[in-house]
C-alpha cells in the first residue's frame, strides 16, 4: 500500500503544480519553466507507476473489454500527447533555460507559443476529466488517511 501512498502524493503534487504553472506571471517565468520540467519528470514517474494498467489495457484493447477502460486509455493517450506538445513547445520558447545542447534553437516564431498555450489549456481540461474518472480512488486515499486498510484499492485503475 506504500505504492498507493506514493502514487497519491505524486498525483497531488502534479495537480497543484499544474494549477500554479497555468499562471506564469504568478511565480515568474523562471519558476514556471523549472516547475514545468519538474512536473514532466513526475509525469514520467506517474506513467511508470501505472505501467501495469497501461500494459494490460494495451494488449487487450482490441479484445472484449469494458468501454470505460477503453475510454480511459484513449483519454490518457491524449493527455500524453498533450504533455509532449507542451514540453517540446516550451523548450522552443524557453527564456531562462538553454536547450541548445539538445539542438533546439530558441524563438522559432509564434507557432510554438500558440501550440504551447493551446495544448496547455486542452490538456488541463483532459487532466480534469482524468481526475474525475479516478475520483473514487482519490476519495479512497483520503478515507484511509494514507494508512493500510480498507478502501485503498485501486478504484478506477483495475477494472
Amino acid at each position: 500500500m506504500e505504492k498507493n501512498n506514493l502514487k497519491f502524493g505524486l498525483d497531488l503534487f502534479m495537480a497543484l503544480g499544474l494549477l500554479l504553472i497555468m499562471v506564469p506571471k504568478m511565480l515568474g517565468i523562471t519558476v514556471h519553466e523549472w516547475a514545468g520540467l519538474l512536473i514532466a519528470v513526475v509525469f514520467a514517474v506517474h506513467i511508470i507507476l501505472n505501467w501495469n494498467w497501461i500494459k494490460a489495457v494495451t494488449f487487450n484493447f482490441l479484445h472484449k473489454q469494458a468501454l470505460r477502460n477503453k475510454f480511459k486509455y484513449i483519454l490518457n493517450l491524449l493527455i500524453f500527447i498533450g504533455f509532449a506538445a507542451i514540453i517540446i513547445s516550451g523548450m522552443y520558447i524557453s527564456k531562462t533555460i538553454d536547450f541548445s545542447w539538445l539542438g533546439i534553437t530558441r524563438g522559432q516564431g509564434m507557432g510554438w507559443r500558440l501550440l504551447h498555450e493551446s495544448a496547455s489549456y486542452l490538456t488541463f481540461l483532459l487532466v480534469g476529466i482524468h481526475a474525475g474518472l479516478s475520483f473514487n480512488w482519490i476519495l479512497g486515499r483520503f478515507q484511509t488517511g494514507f494508512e493500510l486498510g480498507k478502501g485503498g484499492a485501486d478504484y478506477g485503475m483495475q477494472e
Partner: protein
Amino acid sequence: MECKNKLIKIILIVCIFAGGAYSFNHLSFLSKANPANVLEAIQSFNQSSSNFQQGFRGPSAGQRPPFEGQRGPGGHSRGANQGFNSFGNLLAFLGVFASTITATYVVDQLLRNRKVMR
C-alpha cells in the same frame, strides 16, 4: 437528516458548476482550448518553413512579441494589479478544474448506475 445531506450536496455541486462556468468564461477557455489553434500552429510551422526556403528571415530577438502576447477578453493588465490578476486567474483555473472533476464524476457515476446522492 438524509434530505439535508442531499440538499447540501446538491447546493455544493451547483456552486462548483456555477464557479466553473464563470471561470471558464473569465479565462476565455473556449478560444484558448480550441483544437483549431493547434492546427493553426502547425500551419504556421509550414509557413515558416516555406518562407525559410525562399530566403525569408524571421523576426529578430528585439522584434519578438512578449511571452503572453495574446490578449483575450480575460487578458492580463500590467502594473500594480498584475499580482492580483494572477491570483484571480489561479482561482479561476481552480474553479475550472473542480467543475471538470465534479462533472466527470457525476456523469461517470450515473453511467455506472451508482447513486450519486447517498
